[in-house]
């Protein structure tokens, strides 16, 4: 069951002619009517975005133009908070307020894909100077009322929906599809276009609406990004740069089995969770071992299922790490073979993780040589190419579980062979992982460039992972064919290796 980002936005052409306007019910007396002319919600703006979706199949192309719309709100001087997914891959961003049809061009100040938040600013701030920023509240309690405000599907002007806080839990954030953070579930209707809009309680922002289930999967399940996650983002960018989340990069396995508890030496107090896996390049890679028992993080006892009681709620122990920043430390108490140990760990980002999630605002990187297209393996590539090759799928699926990133931080895939006389015999080998080129082990896309520059032999020899024959091109033929292929297939640049 997948959470769909609420953002296949309002596909601009999708005119909801089928949705007939319902007569507005008279609001109950308890809910004060809002006069949009009063300016109280003037800081809640519509964000209209033109997007260029990168093309990972023809990485030299511009991509597919598209568009969408979401919501944002003023939180400071010319600073609008919205979701990262609203403004991802944007080529133009326009802000509109509910009472003023004039579009105001805007740009991204900071974007954090891992927590789906972005801060944008109007290019000309003068129009927004008089607007009042919204204030933040805290974590609302279960069963208390909240309202979601924004510009969802169903009309052009501002909309408000009402509901209660249904659940507070650690949930996957679907924008990258690999990150999980604290999220609050509400039953106020949250629809496409609400994304990035505030969810409010007693006049204060308690979350940013960001995702939900489609009506076919579950009813009235919408999620908002809670204030601790927002505050963390705002604090992270204080130094002018977003540094991403840090991670323990260790997996815990509950201690529910009596024999396991006895063997690991945990007591009857239900404290301690087993370490089931450790990433060697993660924050605790040098410290923890499989079979260790984590007893506490920053003096918060960790229960046998990996939860901690934190700020009055039971939360995943990772929530404590989540609030910290790169370079911060945590105090870890753990037990190894019955002996209690304690250590202070400096937290860092775990990079191999990023590859497994969707990435945005990047030009696809590639190298084309004699019609052979090389691209780094990541989720964007997997989604675009529908890889059927077992080895490629294995490497992607087990990049972390089998620690493949240690040997090969950026696996390179031969994604395509653009047919030409020179390469016609090797076209069936597209969708293979490249192991070596001209004797150089390929660990990153950059290595492909280095290896291809080696010209000491008359052949270009490409060894593929788990394919039993090398691909061989005669250098002189390949070099002669290269320009021809570039021209035939309309490729302007032979490579893009990223901005460095």
């Amino acid at each position: 069951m997948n959470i769909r980002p609420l953002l296949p936005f309002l596909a601009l052409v999708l005119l909801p002619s089928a949705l007939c306007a319902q007569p507005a019910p008279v609001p109950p007396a308890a809910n004060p009517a809002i006069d949009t002319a009063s300016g109280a919600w003037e800081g809640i703006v519509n964000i209209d975005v033109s997007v260029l979706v990168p093309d990972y199949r023809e990485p030299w192309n511009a991509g597919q133009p598209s568009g969408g719309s979401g919501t944002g709100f003023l939180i400071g001087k010319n600073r609008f908070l919205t979701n990262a997914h609203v403004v991802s891959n944007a080529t133009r961003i326009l802000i509109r307020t509910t009472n003023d049809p004039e579009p105001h061009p805007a740009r991204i100040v900071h974007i954090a894909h891992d927590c789906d938040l972005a801060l944008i600013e109007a290019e000309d701030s003068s129009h927004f100077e008089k607007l009042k920023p919204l204030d933040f509240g805290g974590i609302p309690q279960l069963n208390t009322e909240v309202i979601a405000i924004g510009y969802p599907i169903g009309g052009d002007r501002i909309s408000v929906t009402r509901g209660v806080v249904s659940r507070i839990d650690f949930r996957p954030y679907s924008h990258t599809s690999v990150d999980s953070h604290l999220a609050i579930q509400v039953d106020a209707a949250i629809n496409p276009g609400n994304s990035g809009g505030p969810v409010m309680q007693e006049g204060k922002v308690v979350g940013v609406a960001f995702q939900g289930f489609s009506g076919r999967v579950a009813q009235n399940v919408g999620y908002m990004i809670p204030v601790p996650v927002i505050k963390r983002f705002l604090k992270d960018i204080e130094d002018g740069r977003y540094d991403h989340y840090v991670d323990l990069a260790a997996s815990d396995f509950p201690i529910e089995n009596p024999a396991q508890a006895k063997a690991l030496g945990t007591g009857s107090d239900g404290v301690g969770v087993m370490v089931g896996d450790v990433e060697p390049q993660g924050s605790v890679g040098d410290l923890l071992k499989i079979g260790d028992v984590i007893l506490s993080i920053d003096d918060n006892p960790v229960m046998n299922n990996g939860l901690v009681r934190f700020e009055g709620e039971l939360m995943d122990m990772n929530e404590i790490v989540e609030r910290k920043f790169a370079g911060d430390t945590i105090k870890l108490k753990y037990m190894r073979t019955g002996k209690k140990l304690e250590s202070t760990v400096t937290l860092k980002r775990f990079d191999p993780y990023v590859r497994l999630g969707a990435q945005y605002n990047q030009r696809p990187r590639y190298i084309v040589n004699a019609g052979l297209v090389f691209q780094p393996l990541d989720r964007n590539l997997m989604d675009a190419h529908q890889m059927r090759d077992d080895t490629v799928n294995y490497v992607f699926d087990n990049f972390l579980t089998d620690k493949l990133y240690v040997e090969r931080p950026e696996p390179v895939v031969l994604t395509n062979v653009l047919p030409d006389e020179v390469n016609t015999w090797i076209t069936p080998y597209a969708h293979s992982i490249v192991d070596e080129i001209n004797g150089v082990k390929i660990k990153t896309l950059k290595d492909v460039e280095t290896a291809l520059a080696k010209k000491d032999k008359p052949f270009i020899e490409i060894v593929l992972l788990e394919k039993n024959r090398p691909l061989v091109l005669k250098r002189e033929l390949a070099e002669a064919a290269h320009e021809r292929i570039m021209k035939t297939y309309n490729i302007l640049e032979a490579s893009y290796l990223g901005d460095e």
Partner: protein
Amino acid sequence: MKLSPIFLFLALGAATLSAQTPETEAPKKKRAPAVAEVGSAPQQVVQNNSLVRVNATSQPYSLHLPWQKESPSSRRGLGVVLAGNRVLVTGQMVADATYIELELPEKGQKISAKVVAVDYEANLALLESAPSDKQKAFFAGLKPMAVDSSTRIDDKVDILQTGRVGELIKSELRISKVMTRRYNVEGSGFLVYEANNIVRSEANSFTLPVVKSGKLVGLLLSYDSKNQVTTILPAPIIEHFLKDVADGSYEGFPSLGMELQTTLDEQFRDFLGLKPDAPGVLISMVMKGGSAEKAGMKKGDILVAINGFVIDSRGDYRDPQFGALSSSHLVRGRSYVGDKVEIQVIREGKEVTLKGELTRRKPDDFLVLPYLFDKGPRYVLMGGLLFQELSHPYLDAFGEEQRGGAILRLSRVASHPDKYEEEGRKKLVFLSLVLPTPSAQGYDKLGGQVVNKVNGRAIKDLNDLNEAFKSVKDTAHVIELNDFPHILYLDTANAANDNKRLLGGAYRIGSLMRLE
């Protein structure tokens, strides 16, 4: 899936055989009432006294709950009577059979039968009924059919079926192609005839004879009704099988155990130092313990001839009967286990002659069992943890959409077993399922983890695992896994109690293990 020009001499087959022959469910055609025209004699019904109907009930073991069997199903085919009152059918026909009977097409008389010999790789089986008066009477009117291996491309042959009262129904086919292909289990290619025409659908499904002038030229292997393509298991393979059976001990079909790469690509030929018109293919893999390895073949050799037959750049030789044909048939079809083989290779620019003896790698010699019929999967249950040895049928039972995570990891082991074989593993033992017992509390969501060690002992197969459980000295079994969460502890006494409860309990477990 992209086609890659790789020929497999042993195992790791890629092509999947489509379907069984005509659909089993094909509705029986309502026959028009016999036209009894006044004054004319009833038309003579053509019979064939070398064919008997074969009805088999098949019941495989469950691959996921290995102590039980799946629901039985029935198969019908048309067997060919051979000398000595034996009946030839496809291996598929009798796989996992619980009951087999022979039936006279016209009279409907029935007699039970047993499998005398079966080769699931070659997809052939020989049936026999125990000698008795009934058996004598059954076979009295039947005449053995001869096997004819002389078929060539373009020959016209008939697929035979029988109607309701035993009348013969013929579909004429013309052999259009001869090639090698995997039959219906994981493994290497065998000789196949291909023909195009419509084959009408009768109730028989799993074996249909193909004849020419009253002699057997093959058995129907598959029929693709959409493209009207028929593949036939040919007489040369049948003769090989029968000859092997006749000498008393069945050895099966030999293989070299190597993988070769075509050398059609001129740049690749240049790279390998092959002259433009020189024959030969690149040996890209030599299987451990196979005939090729024993004969001294090495990865990187250029194979140029087998037993005097020149191997071209596609890996084909010129067969005197069929023309260009995959060199695998030289070994598989034309040779027997124990035969001498002479292989010419080019190694470092020099021609080398390798001599060896052909062997066959038995299913049990593989880390991952290629197929499993007639026997239950091996397993060990301990306190609710179910351990099995990885097999291709087990993996195949998962649909394409379930192939993520653990199944993807296990599938990869199945296609690249070398690393695990080098570790000395004979089979790949894995935790396949956890039944909810008190001793396995907390482990019930696990499944698909490869077992490395139990109680300190390296696990090379299930027998090791069973011994390791028995030799526990501590109060807990320690199970080390290759995958998350890497270590499991199981209380020795509680697991033993749970074992007792599992026997005959809700899961209807009759035995805690199957190790035969």
